[in-house]
């Protein structure tokens, strides 16, 4: 599903080049659940961004579902994301001026879904995450866990082939975090989505079927857990 070959990323910081990722080679199978772990500054988020096509790599290539991301223009990458990718962020990143319903609708509308199908899908998703009664609430009126559940509903709205999650429990208390992970794994299974997750949390990582550890911008370990 995802194949990274010789992936490297170098930023310029204060006029000097700063290498964040070096020669990453990685393959993620369809339907898999990959956790990327490592200390702060090890390049986790950068790798996630590159795999999702949010940024252009300095070197190497990424194939997602057979598509070479480096060969796409900025707009083509956007369209690719709209059709194939879902995101969950540490800080939820709901659009504060839109209600829960409207936040979930965004990816569907970007895909041009219309009419009843749109509403049905939105209600289905929000019901799935247990928020059928909070459709018209603004993010500020929801708790952190509820916001992340809306974000999950949004992430699955376009039936993504791959879901990228960046520290999805980082801003939540332990209990709520567990519930979110359960929900994510459940959705992953229900919708047959490939899941790529960045986390600090060893417990969360242990639920993935594969864990790669980054340090200094390089993969230092790649372990597979037993089947979930």
């Amino acid at each position, binding site marked *: 599903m995802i194949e990274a070959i010789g992936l490297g990323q170098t930023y310029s910081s204060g006029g000097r080049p700063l290498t964040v990722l070096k020669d990453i080679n990685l393959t993620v199978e369809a339907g898999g659940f990959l956790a990327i772990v490592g200390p702060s500054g090890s390049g986790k*988020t950068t790798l*996630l*961004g590159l795999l*999702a096509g*949010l*940024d252009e790599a300095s070197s190497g290539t990424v194939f997602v579902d057979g598509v070479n991301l480096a060969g796409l223009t*900025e*707009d083509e990458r*956007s*369209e*690719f*994301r*709209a*059709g194939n*990718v879902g*995101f969950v*962020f540490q*800080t939820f*990143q709901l*659009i*504060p*001026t*839109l209600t829960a319903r*409207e936040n979930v609708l*965004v*990816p569907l*509308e*970007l*895909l*041009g879904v219309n009419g009843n199908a749109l509403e049905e899908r939105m209600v289905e998703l929000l019901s799935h995450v247990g928020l059928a009664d909070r459709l018209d609430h603004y993010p*500020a009126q929801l708790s952190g866990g509820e916001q992340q559940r809306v974000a999950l509903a*949004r992430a699955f709205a*376009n039936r993504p082939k791959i879901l990228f999650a*960046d520290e999805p429990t980082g801003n939540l208390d332990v209990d709520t975090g567990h519930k979110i992970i359960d929900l994510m794994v459940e959705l992953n299974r229900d919708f047959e989505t490939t899941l790529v997750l960045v986390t600090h949390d060893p417990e969360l990582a242990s639920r993935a079927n594969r864990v790669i550890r980054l340090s200094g911008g390089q993969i230092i370990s790649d372990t597979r857990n037993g089947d979930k």
Partner: protein
Amino acid sequence: MSLRFALRHARREGRSSVRRIGLYMGAITLGVAALVAINSFRGNIVEAIRSESRALLGADLEVHSSRRFPDPVQGILDSAAAAGVPRSTVTSLPSMARSPVTEMSRLVHLRAIEGDFPYYGEIGTDPTDAWGRLQEGRHAVVEATVTAQLDIAVGDSVTVGEAAFQIIGIITSSPGEVSFQSAVGPRIYIPAAYLEETGLIQFGSLVRYQTYLQIEDNPTLQDFLNRYNSVFEDNQVGYNTVAEQVENLTEAFENMTRFLGLVGLTALLLGGVGVASAVHVYTKEKLNTVAVLRCLGATQRTVFTAYLVQAAALGFLGAAAGVILGLAVQRTLPNVLGDLLPMEVSVAVDWLAVVAGLVIGVWVASVFALLPLVSVRDIPPLRALRRELEEVPRRFTVSRGVAGGALLASVLVISLWQAPLPALGWVYAGGIVGTVVLLWVTARLLMRMTRRHFPKRARYVIRQGVANLFRPQNQTAAVIIALGFGTFLIATIYLVQRNILEPFTIDSGAEAPNLFLFDIQHDQQEGVADLLREHGAPPLQLTPLIPARLSAINGRPVDEILADSSGPVIPRWALRREYRHTYRDTLAPTEELIAGEWWDTAAPTTSGLPQVSIEQDIADELHVGIGDRVTWDFQGIPVEVEISSVRRVNWARFELNFFFVFEPRALAAAPPTIIAFTRIDDMQQRANFQRDLVRQYPNVSVADLALLQEALESVLDKVTLGVRFMALFSIASGIIVLFGAIATSRFHRIREGVLLKTLGATRKQIGHILLTEYLTLGTLAGLTGILLAGLSAWGLVRFMFELDFHLPSAPLAALWLGVAVLTAGIGLLNGRDVLKKPPLAVIREIAE
């Protein structure tokens, strides 16, 4: 698909954008209101001129001259009348009107009427039948000013020259007349049959002869003109037709209203600057939302469109409100401009103006939003993951270039569309852009200077206040532009008006004259001088005045010069106008010799011709210089003179100045009329002198310069009232932008203030911080605005009005202080929440 999403997203986000940008749209509303009001009213004026075209002239053809019609012209008019063409004549001249009862007198404009004028429209009177009875006897119909100032009423008699008339009615309306004319010389109509009796028509009197013909059929009128045009031209007789009158009036009022529209357009452009600044801040707040949208697959174009649609939609709301307000304001315009209009104008909606207002409003809001919105395209989706991601440094991109180009082009196109002349459109657009750029540069300099020369040793509150000027999310540029622009506008209008009035200000010095006597006949000067002495006035400054027309230059007749297209182009007016000459032995204080010699020292001319001194500008126009010969026609008597010197004249002084000054011997034979200035301090004495003068010499007119100045001021006031009225919109727009700019930074200020309060800052300290910041902004913006105004007013006064420029310091200082205080006031008002409420309450409010 992306457009559909963009529209949907724009609608949803609209809820928050209304809150953030909505205030600025108030400025767009004001701008559109100003434009719709004036442009719709222009439509009404043009319509009124068209529908009342004939009434405005009163006839189909008007023929005029400043001397009796020469025989060929009179012959044409007589034969037309003999052929049955209805004809009226109007002979008008300034004169004194006196009441034999109250003994008061006043300068008036006498009009002697013969025939059934006007043929179209009517002169309204009170009582209504007065105009119809005018010709029935020694009757007069007068303007209300005459009866008011002579303290008489209908039924009383009034003396004009040596004849007395009974006032039978007051004029209530007369198409084609502008009401402020009466401030200088109110009209008195009498039957022409009695004009001779007044004894006012004498050599040199300032008489205008007009004949009105009613030739209803247009082809006949055109035939008539085709046939006799050359005769009129050859005899220097002018004429007006209804079509010409309509064209001239339409053009004049189009120009006037278009010019006022430009003043109104300033409000709209100022609103645009406000929108740009608000959108800039708004997009900064939306960085995250945009990054998330990009993550979710929105293209650059989709997010850009979503926000542009928001700006355009708000622009539409603002413009629609502006149209409604504008149509309401349009109803008040007849009160503001009515005194300048020669007819009643009824107010109606001009749909073209409405549509234009809407389109321009939306366009300005969108195009000004474009530049800050371009940066939305550059927000990387990665920002959703990495908040700390550095802001992309601003660099020149094609889209930025296109946005900037579209902005400049729009300002230019709208200016050219609104301006009366293309040149004025260019100057206006250049002036607006230049002013905004200079103010922006000032703001950037202020930020850089305060950062570099930061007052490290100052008290904490000062340091904090100064630092606010250059901190992130500051509104320094927006506040300085809004404030500076408003100040610039107020100061420019004030300075121009003040400088135009300056030359007319009667010098309060003991020597300066305050009475102006004219039409004194040659044989009356001794008598008038005696009378002045009796009233204790200083000796007269007498100036002889002789009217003449140019007949040849260096022996070449004027007609030949005009017909010749190969030589240098001499303007027609310079060759055809009636000149008023004088003769004297010495230079006047307002004159300076720049070439040649005055006749007291110059050798006699080789040709033996008498000498004349020419003013430099008219010398340039006529393409003549020292040694050239000029032949004049003094009421039929040819006099040839040779130019022996060139003078520079200070026209700005309120004194009598002349294009040509003759050597006395040249005009010894021609009888001049005399004009004179004198001074009588006491008001009662002045009135007594006028009374005695008019009784003894009824043909002599006297103008009280203080009254004249008052009249001029009132005229200028009426003319500038429109400008000031339209400027009000810009000032209000500026205040909205100022409020908006300060309000935009309000949340940051409050958050900071609350934090400071939590850390133990007192309300007084926070107040001082705000005061320092806004006082600095106000002081600097005010100063920049005033300096720019000085520059632009100097340019206008010097080059457009060709007057001397003075900079009155006290009023400008007051304006400066006012601006600084206003800014500080608005700043403190905005921060009042921090000052009043406990920190927790404010934190909650922000959290909501």
